[in-house]
């Protein structure tokens, strides 16, 4: 009789010793899957929408060119006309060739032909600036480009 009573007395607590391991596993998963946000976009980005979009495969081979109207806190300095942003600063069209060269140097030589330039351009921008960028990219022979866009949800 005494023996049974003893067994009923206390349930062992679930061990939490493995909890850190589980969380670390999650942590490492996210660290490997995810890319750090390295650029603060300083221009307005309302990307155009499309239906025939493709995914860019290798993120490390993509260099971004942002175009749009500067955000409010920069308007005083940079004006309210659409501007080009390369990395973390505003740039001129003439800086693009240099930017591409620097981007290429940062990559492995074998990967250079696979590089893609992603144009993240605000949909209300005039084509003039886009055309200038395209011309400049041709000059730098960075011919593989991607017009960044969002998936359109409604079906027209």
């Amino acid at each position: 009789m005494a023996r049974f009573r003893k067994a009923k007395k206390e349930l062992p607590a679930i061990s939490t010793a493995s909890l850190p391991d589980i969380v670390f596993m999650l942590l490492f998963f996210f660290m490997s899957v995810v890319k750090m946000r390295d650029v603060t976009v300083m221009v307005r980005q309302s990307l155009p929408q499309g239906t025939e979009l493709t995914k860019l495969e290798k993120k490390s081979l993509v260099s971004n060119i942002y175009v749009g109207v500067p955000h409010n806190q920069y308007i005083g300095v940079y004006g309210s006309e659409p501007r080009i942003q390369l990395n973390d600063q505003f740039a001129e069209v003439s800086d693009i060739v240099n930017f591409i060269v620097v981007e290429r140097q940062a990559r492995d030589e074998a990967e250079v032909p696979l590089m893609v330039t992603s144009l993240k351009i605000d949909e209300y921008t005039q084509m003039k600036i886009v055309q200038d960028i395209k011309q400049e990219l041709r000059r730098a022979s960075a011919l593989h480009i991607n017009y960044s866009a969002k998936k359109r949800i409604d079906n027209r």
Partner: protein
Amino acid sequence: MRKPPEIPSASLADIAFLLLIFFLTTSSMDTDIGLERRLPPLAPDVEQDDAPPIKERNVFIVLVNKDNQLLVEGEWLQIGQLREKAKEFLENPNDSENLPEKEIKEVDFFGEMPITKGVISLQNDLGTQYGVYLEVQNELVGAVNELRNELAMSKFGKPLAMLTKEQQDAIREIYPQRISEAEPKRVGVK
């Protein structure tokens, strides 16, 4: 000798959670999607004369002006109508005179197939809005994709994405994506 007391590891989980949350907030998971295009290389001026002239019936001219209006083959169109028009141009089902010529070529899986010589030429003003320009491009790419998909369905009974690489390449050969982005005319700048 007395055993030193163990360091409590209960807080380890909390620390790991903190790190996890930090990485979750600072990282971006969004993949970049968009329309992939290839720009033509900068051609030296000398070569331009050597290229054979392209016949008018083989070119599908799409103009987008500074007021974002669409002129397709000399006709006002809405963006919604563009896809059908482009498909008709590329497919030319009745071999009509004013739609592009076809060239017989040997293609894997299909044998001899007439392949269109049509080229889509997209022209814009400097004042055209980028969003509209992209929408037009999207429609043109969509037209090609729809044709490819229809062919894939009728030949293999599967959509294009489900086919093997060789089958996809064959279909791409029959309906090539020839969209040229012309250099703009210098009008319409504000």
